[in-house]
């Protein structure tokens, strides 16, 4: 049972990058914990007609916002850094008029100390659905972005995408993606694979693996670093069309056999377009995901205290008035944040649920109104200390990326 005491919205003297505190509140949980929360809408460095945003931080806590803006056929992938005086001047990473620009499968920016990696999708053939993952790297020696390179070596015109990136040591990056090279093997549409590779700070491929030979075709992948090594979560696809969330872990130089995080037994011969999200801190791992067995939409959260070797039974975050689009983040205090979309009213809402490290719901707050439509895309969250940064596409006027900072006390 939660007891909420929200104060009315107010505006106070704020840093230049902050527009307003939209809402504040406290909640007292059944176990007596008092949790305060405030949501601040920040100014956005992204222009009108921007979307497909991501917010990401580096190990120092520096926040970066990336987005795609469009003008006619030209797509531009840019980013900005949040400084004490506001957002830095946007920097262009890449642009193109032959990109595959998609509401669910969109560019990633990864920051690793002085190094950065970024990807986008470029059409590879006449077929509307064939596209490559192109990546560019910026390292200490070469502060400019490298010449783009296709990160997969198959040479097959097929679907490649749903990328996640994870910074590794010495400026290298683990890149995970869905790879459709086997979908074009025969007359019938073949199976989507999950692949991963480690790329050096200058973009050279150091290792590459097939992690799963049969994954769901169009759900996002997600990766995180535990004290035991990287973990990757994705939507699996069994021979019987069970499409539950699976995890594989990189241990002792090899990837473990993928295992379900939980057996939802959701059987569908289709695409939910709703991938899982994983966050980790030392041995603590949180995975949130969407499922809809028996046509009942649910957002669930499962926790691990052994770097993903085992998981608790899931706790229900939201159901049935949700269309998922989840995100996760871990605070320094060990609290867990899950973002999801509430569809209980005509106006969908971006929600954050705050859980204790023991999966007790501490607080739930609405960050912003949004749309349940595809054009609103997937909100992305990232934590720094006891704050969570949220980015999304606002469709109330022309599409524009928005950012909020949620502080949890």
């Amino acid at each position, binding site marked *: 049972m939660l007891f909420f005491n929200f104060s009315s919205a107010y505006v106070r003297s704020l840093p230049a990058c902050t527009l307003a505190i939209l809402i504040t509140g406290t909640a007292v949980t059944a176990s007596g914990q008092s949790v305060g929360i405030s949501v601040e809408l920040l100014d956005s460095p992204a222009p009108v007609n921007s979307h497909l945003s991501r917010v990401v931080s580096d190990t120092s806590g520096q926040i970066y916002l990336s987005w795609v803006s469009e003008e006619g056929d030209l797509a531009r992938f840019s980013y900005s850094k949040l400084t004490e005086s506001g957002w830095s001047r946007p920097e262009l990473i890449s642009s193109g008029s032959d990109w595959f620009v998609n509401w669910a499968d969109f560019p990633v920016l990864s920051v690793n100390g002085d190094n950065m990696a970024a990807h986008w999708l470029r059409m590879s053939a006449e077929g509307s659905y064939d596209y490559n993952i192109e990546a560019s790297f910026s390292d200490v020696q070469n502060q400019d972005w490298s010449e783009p390179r296709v990160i997969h070596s198959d040479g097959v015109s097929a679907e490649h995408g749903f990328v996640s990136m994870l910074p590794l040591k010495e400026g290298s990056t683990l890149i995970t993606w869905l790879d459709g090279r086997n979908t074009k093997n025969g007359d019938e549409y073949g199976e989507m694979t999950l692949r991963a590779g480690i790329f050096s700070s200058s973009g050279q491929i150091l290792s590459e693996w097939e992690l799963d030979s049969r994954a769901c075709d169009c759900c996002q992948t997600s990766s995180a670093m535990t004290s035991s090594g990287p973990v990757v979560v994705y939507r699996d696809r069994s021979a019987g069309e069970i499409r539950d969330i699976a995890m594989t872990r990189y241990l002792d130089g090899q990837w473990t056999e993928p295992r379900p995080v939980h057996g939802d037994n959701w059987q569908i011969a289709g695409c*939910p*377009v709703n991938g899982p999200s994983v966050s980790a801190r030392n041995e603590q791992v949180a995975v949130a995901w*969407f499922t*809809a067995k028996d046509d009942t939409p649910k957002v669930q959260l499962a926790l691990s205290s052994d770097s993903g070797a085992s998981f608790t039974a899931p706790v229900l975050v939201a159901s049935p008035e949700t269309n998922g689009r989840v995100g996760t983040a871990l605070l320094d205090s060990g609290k867990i944040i899950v973002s999801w979309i509430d569809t209980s009213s005509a106006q969908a809402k971006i929600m954050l649920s705050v859980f204790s490290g023991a999966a007790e719901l501490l607080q739930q707050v609405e960050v912003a109104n949004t749309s349940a439509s*595809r054009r609103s895309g997937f909100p992305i969250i990232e934590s720094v200390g006891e704050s969570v940064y949220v980015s999304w596409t606002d469709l109330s006027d022309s599409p524009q990326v928005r950012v909020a900072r949620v502080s949890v006390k």
Partner: protein
Amino acid sequence: MKNSVSRFRRLILVTILLATSVSAHSQEGDWQIVNYWSEWCAPCRIEIPMFNALAQELEFANVRVVGINFDEDPRDVTLDIAEEMGIKFRTLTLEESASLALRAPDVMPTTYILKPDGAVAAKLIGMQEREDILTRLEELGLAITTDVSRREAQ
């Protein structure tokens, strides 16, 4: 030249569209099979030929096949995509489908069977096969004699 041909083709498409334009209620009295599709959805693309055939087969049984572009593309873009995907049944944009009052699907593809009054009779999640649809129609009490089965009977 190419542009002229393209414009001409678009004109034909629009003409066909206007001739067969469906507001959601223009086909009252018919059962409807409403298929949500998207260009990026591989199973959607796979089942399109089946729905093309079914649309013809069910023409004489007062069952209409209607497609809805799951993405929020405007009509001209929807028509272009539908043409690229080889869709030969009537297609609505998502905006145009609002009057059907269907919950946007959680999974692509999703296919609804609607009664003549617009009520949802069945929701079929994921890729369907011809027999799945016909069996479900039969379960709903529709004695379907498709054009194909007529020909087979003859």
